[in-house]
Every structure is written in structure tokens, then in C-alpha cells.
């Protein structure tokens, strides 16, 4: 027998704490659903719906940039579901370009299309073109292995291989058949210095990479990605699993990498995009909505949808 039945019951009359301003909560936590515009948006505002067809708002500053990757009317479907509905975008050479937008808007899919990592997924259909240095990357005669060697990639979750730190960094060189120890050590040091990790690990290069902290592991992945001197560095939410200190280190690093590499970074964190990118592209529901210099996207966006997102009113 439980005593619960005899205990005086108070729950039903418990004082409810004063309700927080409903409007704010709704605005902050509303799912990125176009059917439910946030209260401040006003009923007369039209937000983008899945069927909206409109041209991307591209700021004029981009036309003066030399591009390294050009995406032309690129569509991608997983089975029957189209995830990207015709993206047109140029990635300027030597700059940091951030892709922002709510979850599921196609940022990562677009990023993974640039080095054809989506090839690994079955049942995928592509339309349109992606040009890398003017060459369509989906052409039959393109060596996809060679393409990927020229594009480094850093993933959302740090994924060092279960080997030593040294072997992790020089993996790309091992693939290339490099055997000279002097070259391997030189590249290892240069890459680790490039990833701001050298001082922390120089005495334990031959210990397992899995013994490092999360932030160190992610910087190791960056070192591994830049070891082969790629032209483009693709980063898929590189800081989402890291604490603020480690995030700051990675952001500093991205800032230092500009100029030397072209960086494309997918991020959920708008402050991050604002802090470390030159250009920002806002994506929503598989479309590129607005694309321009980071300052104007955040301070002076041309579209109200972009403004609503970057000010945190939806998404």
C-alpha cells in the first residue's frame, strides 16, 4: 500500500510562476515553419513558402570578386524529395564565405556537393552544374579523387582517425605516396602550426589522436585538411560541438586562413558568421535567399526575410 493516497494533495493549487512574455518565447522558439510566422511579423507579411519562386538577392559587391567555385542552377534530390531547388552562387577566391540558415535548409547538402561527398549517398539525383576553376566537377572525365584532394573538409563532429596525431595530419600525404620522413615531418609541423595546435602537441605527435580534447581534435582535423594545401576549405559547422574557448580558437584560425585558402563555412551560429566571414549567404528551404558582404547581410539586408532571420525573429 502506498502512502501517496493519504498524503495531503497540494499540486493542483500550486502557484504558477508568472508567465514570461509570451511573444518573446514564441519568437525565439518557433520552428522555422513558414506557415507560422512569428507574432511580430504581422499577418500581412508574406514569408517564403516551399513553393515560392523568386530570384536570389545577390549584392553587387560580389560581381567584383574573382570566383573559384561557381554554382549554376544546382538542384539535388534525395530520392523524390528535392533538397536544393536551383542554387546560383559564386564563391569568391581567398575569402571566407558563410552559409547560414535554419536546420534542414540545405546548407550542408550544398557544401557536400562542392567536393562531391554526396556521391557516397545512394539514390541521389543532380541537375545543374558546379564549376571549380571553370571546370564542371560532375563531368564524366573529372577525377573525383583529384577533386577532393584539392578541397579540404572539416566536419561537424571532429573525426580524427584512430591513429597517432602525426599519422592523422599526414594522411593526405600518405595517400599521395610520400615516403620521405623529412617532408612528412615538415608538413606535419607546418599544418599543426597552421591550425594553432603545434605548441600543444609537439611532444606527443606519436600518441593517439583520440586522447586529445574536443577542441584539439577539431583543430587536428583542420590541420589534416590543410596538410595537402587544398585550394578550398569546406567546413561543416566546425564549432557546433565545442565550448566557447575552443570555438574562439577555431574562429581565430579561420580568420587567419583567409587569403591563403578559400573557406566555405556552414554555421548555425550567426555571431560566428558575423565574426569570421567576408560574405554571407542566407539559405532557406533549399533556396539561396540573399547573398552579399557579411556586413550588409547583418546590418542592412535587402530582404525582410533575411532581416527576420539574422535578428533572431524566426529560425
Amino acid at each position, binding site marked *: 500500500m502506498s502512502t501517496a493516497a493519504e498524503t*495531503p*494533495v497540494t499540486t493542483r493549487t500550486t502557484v504558477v510562476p508568472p508567465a514570461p512574455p509570451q511573444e518573446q518565447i514564441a519568437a525565439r522558439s518557433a520552428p522555422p515553419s513558414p506557415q507560422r510566422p512569428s507574432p511580430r511579423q504581422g499577418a500581412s507579411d508574406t514569408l517564403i513558402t516551399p513553393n515560392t519562386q523568386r530570384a536570389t538577392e545577390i549584392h553587387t559587391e560580389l560581381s567584383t570578386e574573382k570566383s573559384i567555385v561557381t554554382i549554376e542552377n544546382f538542384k539535388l534530390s534525395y530520392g523524390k524529395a528535392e533538397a536544393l531547388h536551383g542554387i546560383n552562387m559564386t564563391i569568391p577566391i581567398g575569402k571566407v564565405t558563410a552559409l547560414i540558415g535554419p536546420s534542414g535548409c540545405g546548407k550542408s547538402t550544398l557544401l557536400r556537393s562542392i567536393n562531391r*561527398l554526396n556521391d*557516397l549517398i545512394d539514390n541521389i539525383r543532380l541537375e545543374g552544374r558546379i564549376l571549380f576553376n571553370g571546370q564542371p566537377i560532375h563531368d564524366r572525365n573529372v577525377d573525383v*579523387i583529384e577533386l577532393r584532394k584539392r578541397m579540404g573538409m572539416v*566536419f561537424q563532429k571532429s*573525426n580524427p*582517425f584512430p*591513429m597517432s596525431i602525426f599519422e592523422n595530419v599526414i594522411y593526405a600525404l600518405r*595517400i599521395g605516396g610520400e615516403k620521405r620522413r623529412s617532408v612528412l615531418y615538415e608538413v606535419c609541423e607546418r599544418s599543426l602550426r597552421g591550425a594553432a595546435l603545434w605548441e600543444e602537441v609537439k611532444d606527443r605527435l606519436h600518441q593517439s589522436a583520440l586522447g586529445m580534447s574536443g577542441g584539439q581534435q577539431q583543430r587536428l582535423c583542420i590541420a589534416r585538411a590543410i596538410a595537402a594545401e587544398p585550394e578550398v576549405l569546406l567546413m561543416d559547422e566546425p564549432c557546433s560541438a565545442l565550448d566557447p574557448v575552443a570555438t574562439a580558437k577555431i574562429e581565430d584560425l579561420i580568420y587567419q586562413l583567409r587569403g591563403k585558402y578559400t573557406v566555405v563555412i556552414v554555421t548555425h551560429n550567426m555571431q560566428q558568421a558575423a565574426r569570421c566571414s567576408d560574405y554571407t549567404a542566407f539559405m532557406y528551404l533549399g533556396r539561396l535567399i540573399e547573398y552579399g558582404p557579411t556586413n550588409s547581410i547583418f546590418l542592412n539586408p535587402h530582404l525582410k526575410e533575411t532581416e527576420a532571420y539574422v535578428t533572431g525573429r524566426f529560425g
Partner: protein
Amino acid sequence: MTPDAILPSSPPDRPHEHAIFIALSRAKSNVMYTVSVLFTLVILLLLVLVTGYLVHIGFKSLHWSFFTEKPIPQGVEGAPGGMKPALEGTCILIGMASVVGIPIGMLCGIYLSEYSANSILATPTRFVADVLTGVPSIVVGVLGYQLVVVPMRHHYSGYAGALALAFIMIPIVARTTEEMLLLVPRSYREASIALGATKARTIMVIVLPAATGSIITGVMLAIARVAGETAPLIFTALGSTLLDPSQPFPSLTVDIYHYAQGGDRAEQQLAFAGILILILLIFVLNVIVRGFIATISRQRTH
């Protein structure tokens, strides 16, 4: 049976019925617990009885000569001798079966896990492997007899025995390899591919090493399984005291089968000693496997 209420709850609509309901469900829970414990004890008792009995009579007949001598026929001086050829024979048979079965099984597992994504071959292969794993070993023995021994003019041999054992190992190794490779995080493969590695290199350098420990575990389990097989060997290796694999070949299990049936008391004791050794062998293999699993999970958490 009156635990303190941790959270205040609303009063039940009908307090009396509610109390009965609560008491009943507590009672059911206790009955369930008691019955489970009881049957666990029954199983444990059986196990202790069987192993105790085996160890008891096995040890009595276990002498040093068991490991060093050949079996000696009834009535001859020194009978019953030992089981040296059978012990060595079993080890050689397992070795030969592993040489054939492990590479084939592993390659099949690699195919299923890494290459078969869009292939129509994958599902049938998986199905056949699962069925083969469950096939009674006597079937494998008769098959081996019909497909290997009969075509060689009814010539029993160690090779035929090893082939039969390999046939049992292949599906086990293939399926465990596949399952262990599927446990390797996808991010490893993606990172390697994104760095420009070929698929083969990714598999050989990243995926397989990451799964080595667990694959070894699977292989050991397959070895432990065939170490105890008797039926396939009766039909293929037959039995002998000579260690020539092109001739009829000795093995621990088949010798145990023959000695345990015979009427001679000394030979029966030899069989019991053999059983003890066989069980110890399989026990040791299992302990090693468990050791491996423990070290792997320790590595994973680090």
C-alpha cells in the same frame, strides 16, 4: 511495503480499488522477480552439475600420458595410451579451416558492408549466410562427404575435414565482419574520402583497423564453434592416428565419439579426459574473446 511517497499525487477516484490495484501490481512484480531468480538458479545448478561431473571423472583419467602418447588398442601393454594425435589433429584442422575460411568470410563481410549498397547481390547473400549459420552440422558433414569424399574415390582426408569446417566458418565470419564494419562511424569514411583517399584505401587503412578488435572476436567465436564440431568430421576426416592431411585424419571430437561408445572402461575414461580438454579449450577461447571485448570497450571510452 509502504515506501514514502516522493511526489504528491492527485487522490484516486476510488481509493479502495486503487489501493487493491497497487497491491496487486506490486505482488505481480515480486512473483516475476522470484520466478526469474529461481530459474536462473536451476540453470546454474545444471551447469555446475555437468561441469563438476566432467571435471571429476575427467581429472581422474587425465595423466601426462594423455598429452604425449598415441592411443593404444585394448589388450596391448600400456592401453589405453593418450590422445596426442587427436589433439594435434584438431589444432591442424582448425588451422587449415581458418586459412581457407577467414579470408573468404572477411572479404564477403567487407563486400556486404562497404560495397553492396546498390547491389542486388547483397540481400540474397545476407540471407544465405544467415541460413548457412543455422544449418545443422550433420548436413555439412553429409555435403562434404558427397561433394569431396565421394568424388575422390571415397577417400577420407584431413583436407576434406578442413574444408567442411571452413564451410561452417565462412558465414559466421562474413556476418560478424559485416556487422563490426557497420559499427565503424561513417564520419571516418567521409573524412578519408574527403581527403582524396580511394575507397579501397579507406577500407584497408581506416575502416578495417578501426574494427580489428571486434573482427578478431568474431573470428575467435567461429573457431570456438568449429573446434567442437564432430558430425562434419566423421563424414570427411574419419579418424586416424597419423597426421597426414591427405589421409584420414585424427581429431579430438571424433575420437571422443568413438571411445565414449566403446565398451572398454579405460577408453571411456580417455573419452572423458578428452571432453575435459575440449571444454577447457573452448572455455579458454571464450575468455580470450571476452578479454578482447573488454579491452575494445575500454579503448572506445577513452
